[in-house]
């Protein structure tokens, strides 16, 4: 298993190099110049040229990329062109909000999705099954940003149960942390919850009609024991695969939710960096999010061994 994990990590290195290169090329192809933005409200050609020279923006793209990779290998993600802050520090400071949001959304997706799928699979074709299927289909069709606005309007403005926006770090107490996460987390977690529901419901449907389950039932095992000890573990393999993809999707979806709820996270940082052509910040974000996706996929791979012993061999 360790060897397998090591191989996967090595295979991720080209990905970590290629994705930032693509970002470099795309930014280079797109019209616009960060020096123009940095030159202020009254830019002059001389000032723009001076900024370009100071930041090396007129150097060839390959040279700039090589310089960036060299710095990253020394643990330096550079400084923001707009605020002169360390990109590493900016990412670390903003990571808390995004990771909390993604964690909340994914935990909700798994817990709610599993619950709905299990309830639904107890009586296939029954009222609960049909209701769950119907609700999950609606949830898939609802855009997260719209749902986020509805939740804010209802539970922050009308009933004043949760804050309308903002983020409080966990260090300031679990209560305030959770209260700021509920609305954005539910808005973001609804889609993956619906997908987990449908995926797990479908997998459970197949597993529950397989021979070994019928055999277990024939031996007199209780329905609960069959479901939780035998069926659920096997049904989880496709769900875990989907889960890996969903983490990347939720990370991307956090951009709009962070803006709606004014959360100081990586998503809003990414949007700002794109709009202001703050290339070092954008590259830092891309490297970070690519690394998260690589690590999550690796964990998903490793988890196959737990769910399916055949993979361990």
């Amino acid at each position, binding site marked *: 298993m360790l060897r397998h994990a090591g191989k996967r990590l090595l295979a991720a290195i080209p990905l970590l190099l290629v994705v930032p290169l693509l970002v470099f090329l795309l930014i280079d192809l797109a*019209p*616009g*110049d960060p020096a*123009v*933005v*940095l*030159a*202020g*409200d*009254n*830019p*002059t*050609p001389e*000032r*723009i040229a*001076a*900024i370009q020279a*100071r930041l090396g923006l007129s150097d060839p793209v390959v040279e700039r990329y090589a310089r960036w990779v060299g710095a990253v290998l020394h643990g330096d993600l550079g400084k*923001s062109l*707009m*605020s*002169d*802050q360390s990109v590493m520090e900016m990412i670390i*400071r903003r990571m808390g909000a995004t990771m909390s949001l993604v964690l909340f959304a994914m935990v909700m997706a798994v817990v709610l999705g599993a619950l709905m799928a299990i309830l639904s699979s107890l009586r296939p074709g029954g009222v609960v099954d049909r209701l769950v299927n119907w609700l999950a289909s609606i949830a898939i069709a609802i855009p997260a940003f719209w749902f986020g*606005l509805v939740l*804010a*309007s209802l539970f*922050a*403005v009308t009933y*004043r149960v949760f*804050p*309308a*926006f*903002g983020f409080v770090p966990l260090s300031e107490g679990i209560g305030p942390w959770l209260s700021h996460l509920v609305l954005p987390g539910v808005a973001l977690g609804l889609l993956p919850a619906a997908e987990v529901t449908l995926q797990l419901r479908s997998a459970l449907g197949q597993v529950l009609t397989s021979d070994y389950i019928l055999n277990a039932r024939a031996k007199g095992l209780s329905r609960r024991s069959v479901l939780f000890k035998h069926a659920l573990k096997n049904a989880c393999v496709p769900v875990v695969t989907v889960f890996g993809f969903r983490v990347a999707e939720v990370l991307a979806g956090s951009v709009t939710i962070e*803006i*709606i*709820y*004014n959360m*100081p996270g990586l998503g809003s940082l990414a949007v*700002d960096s*794109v*709009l*202001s*052509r703050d290339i070092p910040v954008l590259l830092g974000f891309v490297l970070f999010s690519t690394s998260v996706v690589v690590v999550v996929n690796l964990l998903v791979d490793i988890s196959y061994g737990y769910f399916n012993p055949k993979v361990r061999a």
Partner: protein
Amino acid sequence: MTWRCVRRRSGVAMLAVAALALTGCGSGGAAGNDGKPAQSTEADPNATLRFTSAAPIRNLDPALQTSYGGVGYLVLAIDRLTTLDKDDNVVPGLATEWKFAKDGSYLELKLRDDVRFHDGTVFDAAAVKANIERGKTLEGSTIKQNLDDITSVEAVDAHTVRLRLVKGRGVQLPSVFATNAGMMISPKAIAERSAKLASDLGDAGSGPYLVTSFTPGEKVVMKKAPAYWDPAVGQIAGIELQAISDGATRLRGVQTGQTDLTTVSAANDLAQARQLADQGAVDMKKVTFRNVLGVYLRANLGDLTKPEVRQAIAHAIDPDAVGALFSGSCQPNRQLYPAGSWAAIKDYSYPYPYDQAKARELVQKAGGAKVTISYPASTNMEQPANVIQGKLSEAGIDAKLNPVPNTENEPRFIAGDFELMVSASWSPKIDPADTVDTYLLDTYKLATDRGAIEPDAAKAADPTLSEAQRAPLYAKIWQTTMQQAWYIPICRLTVGVVSNNKVLNTDNVPLADIGIWDLRHIAVKR
């Protein structure tokens, strides 16, 4: 021409001058929402105001601001040589009075003698010299251009400073000193930690508040300075200023009590704010934007080199159709200066009223026309750009839309990348000389036929002339600008100042009409 506390203006302004003089040229006392001074018993000195706005601030160095939005944060912590009152009159700040030499060779400023920076350093003529020289020489300085007319700075005595000027230039300096170009920071901080000021202003300012925490692009937290020379301002214990890009989120903040005060300018946000105000959920004051929503044209690019095409565009734009997009919150405006200003054209009518038939005729005369309309994407300029495209197409012009990221729209137009831009960025400066430099001759360079306005602009910028002598020269320049259709003014937007019912003095927010917020007079009820 001499300035004593304020420049001569209308009769009403003269009364204000007299009032200011009687109060020792200090800033006016705080006024309540009803226009009367806020009762001291009403305001809570221990309160903290939570304010949100769309504009972020990325650094705290006044000489390195890349956008004017940052100025609204800095004015609370850093004093300026002059300030603006809510009616855009230039009033004393750290300079109590100013006058130009009879031959216009220098501008002399008398300085307050009771001011210390928060680090204990005395504010004096040497401090002014250090700041102006820094602004002119600092690498990356964004105020260098504002200070270009100053050739050298002399300290006449501890509280008098003389700025030597480029011949025939510098008339706009008193009003420029009310921006970040006139912000004074401690010479001790300049000497010891100039490069660090951007991220840590510390006690380098002398304003009514002190920055206690700064998260670039997100939030600035300030506390009341222990002693301030103007007791009428800085009435609360602290202010938290937060940047929130989404107007609906800012409104929700005030509505739920999570924040106290915000501003909105998008038509839908204004409509919602009005509805909430009608229900009594929030208070709202409206401020008509000084900026003009209009169309910038590069008369030296593409088909816009043909005067008939520019005239056709001017005739084809229907100001009522654009105004309708804002549900009455964009006041028709076809001048370059707000009516009532001494710099506005008197008895004036716009040369190209809406006339599609005339526009079509001009397009045919030009043998057809093709233009690309650039505008800041995902802003309230999106709909006006679409309406304008429709009207130009109706007139037979092949008009294409070019949405551009908001941060790049203006800089790239200035760089000459676009031929036509829809924007609300035309901001008539306090002094028209600054407007001519910014939009016509220098930065935006709209005046492609410089000879048509340059002689008048040079004459009008003479600091020895009075406003009455300068006004007709500017009227001629504005008329040429609109005759040539270098710029097409359409309307002036409205900004809503939205607060909960505990916030006092929301009708006394200087700079609000240019979209930034000087909150020094704001107080919070007990």
